[in-house]
C-alpha cells in the first residue's frame, strides 16, 4: 500500500532536517515536504535528502494550502493513506504508529492525533465554542497531526477545499459535510520550539481567526454536500 507523510514547511531551516531524520525509520512511508515559498534555506536542506519528495511552491500560500498541495500530490499519485506532520518539531514520530494502528482497527476516514494538554485556557474556551458551533465532535480541533484515507484525500483535493484558509475547523467541517467518519487518538506532543504560533502572531490575527472560524461554522454547519447526497441516492 502506497502511503506518505506530508510535511508542509515555511522557513523551518532550524528544525526541518531533524524532523525528516525522525520520520526516516518509517520506510513504508514516502516522505513529502512541501516548501511553502520559504525565504530561508529550507528547500536546499530538503534537497540533500535523496529519498525525500520536495514540492516547491512558487509563492507562500499558507499552511493549509501547502498541506493541500501534498494531499493533492498523493491523491493524483494513487497513495492510499497520508499523514500530515508539522515541520516545527511539535509532533513526535511515535504518533505515526498510533495513528496507523488506530485507523486499521477503526477503519475511519480520518484519524486525528489529539493532545488537549497543550494550549492556554483561552484557546480551550475557543475550541469548546467551535465544537459547539460546528457540531464536530473532536476534542483537539486544531491538531495538524492527522491521517487521511483516499476518500478524505479526494474531498480535500477539490477546489472548494482550496477556498479554506486554515486547516483546522474548516477542513473537519467539510469532511463531516461530505459524510466522512473521523476519530481521534491521544498522542504526546512537544511544545513549539520557537514559541511563536503561525496563526496567532498578533491580537489582530486572533480576532480575525475567531471571527472567520465562527462565521465558517455558522454558515456551513448544516450544509449537505455532494458525497452525502450521492450515498443517500445509492441506498
Amino acid at each position: 500500500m502506497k502511503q506518505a507523510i506530508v510535511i508542509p514547511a515555511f522557513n523551518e531551516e532550524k528544525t526541518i532536517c531533524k524532523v525528516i531524520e525522525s520520520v526516516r525509520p518509517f520506510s513504508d512511508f514516502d516522505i513529502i515536504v512541501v516548501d511553502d515559498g520559504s525565504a530561508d534555506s529550507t528547500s536546499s536542506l530538503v534537497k540533500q535528502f535523496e529519498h525525500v519528495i520536495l514540492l516547491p511552491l512558487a509563492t507562500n500560500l499558507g499552511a493549509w494550502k501547502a498541506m493541500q498541495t501534498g494531499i493533492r500530490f498523493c491523491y493524483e499519485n494513487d497513495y492510499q493513506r497520508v499523514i500530515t506532520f508539522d515541520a516545527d518539531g511539535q509532533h513526535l514520530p511515535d504518533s505515526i504508529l498510533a495513528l496507523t494502528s488506530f485507523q486499521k482497527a477503526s477503519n475511519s476516514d480520518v484519524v486525528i492525533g489529539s493532545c488537549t494538554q497543550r494550549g492556554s485556557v483561552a484557546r480551550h474556551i475557543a475550541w469548546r465554542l467551535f465544537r459547539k458551533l460546528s457540531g464536530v465532535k473532536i476534542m483537539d480541533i486544531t491538531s495538524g497531526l492527522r491521517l487521511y484515507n483516499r476518500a478524505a484525500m479526494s474531498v480535500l483535493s477539490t477546489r472548494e477545499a482550496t477556498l479554506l484558509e486554515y486547516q483546522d475547523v474548516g477542513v473537519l467541517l467539510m469532511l463531516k459535510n461530505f459524510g466522512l467518519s473521523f476519530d481521534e487518538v491521544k498522542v504526546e506532543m512537544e511544545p513549539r520550539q520557537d514559541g511563536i504560533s503561525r496563526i496567532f502572531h498578533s491580537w489582530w490575527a486572533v480576532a480575525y481567526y475567531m471571527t472567520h472560524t465562527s462565521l465558517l461554522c455558522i454558515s456551513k454547519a448544516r450544509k449537505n454536500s455532494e458525497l452525502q447526497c450521492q450515498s443517500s441516492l445509492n441506498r
Partner: protein
Amino acid sequence: MQNYQIFSAGIAIIFFVTAFILVRRDNILPGSAIRWTLLSVLILILGVFPQLSDIAAKLLGISYPPILPVLFACIILLLKALLNDIERTKDRAKIERLVQRVAMLEQKIDSATKYSNKV
C-alpha cells in the same frame, strides 16, 4: 438649457467619451465593455435630461427626486463590488491551484531528470 443641465451633461459626456476610448483601446474586456457602454449611454441620457429623474420620482412617489439617480448609482456600485469580490475569489483559487500544480510538475521534472542521470 439651464446651468445645472449643462454641468450634468458635461460630466456625462466626459464619462461617455472616457468609457468609449477605453473600449476602443481594448483596455476593458469585451463582456465588461458592453456593460460600461450601456451604463455610459444611460448616464449620458440622464445627464442631458436630468428632468427624467423628476418624472421617474413622481411615478415612484419619491418626494426628493435627485436622490433617485444617487440611489441607482449606489446600488450599481454595491452590486459591482460584490461581483468583483466573487470574481476575485474565483481567480485566487485558480492561481493557488496553479501554484500547487506547478510545484507538482516541478517535482515530476526533477525526479525524471534524476532518473535519466542515473541511467
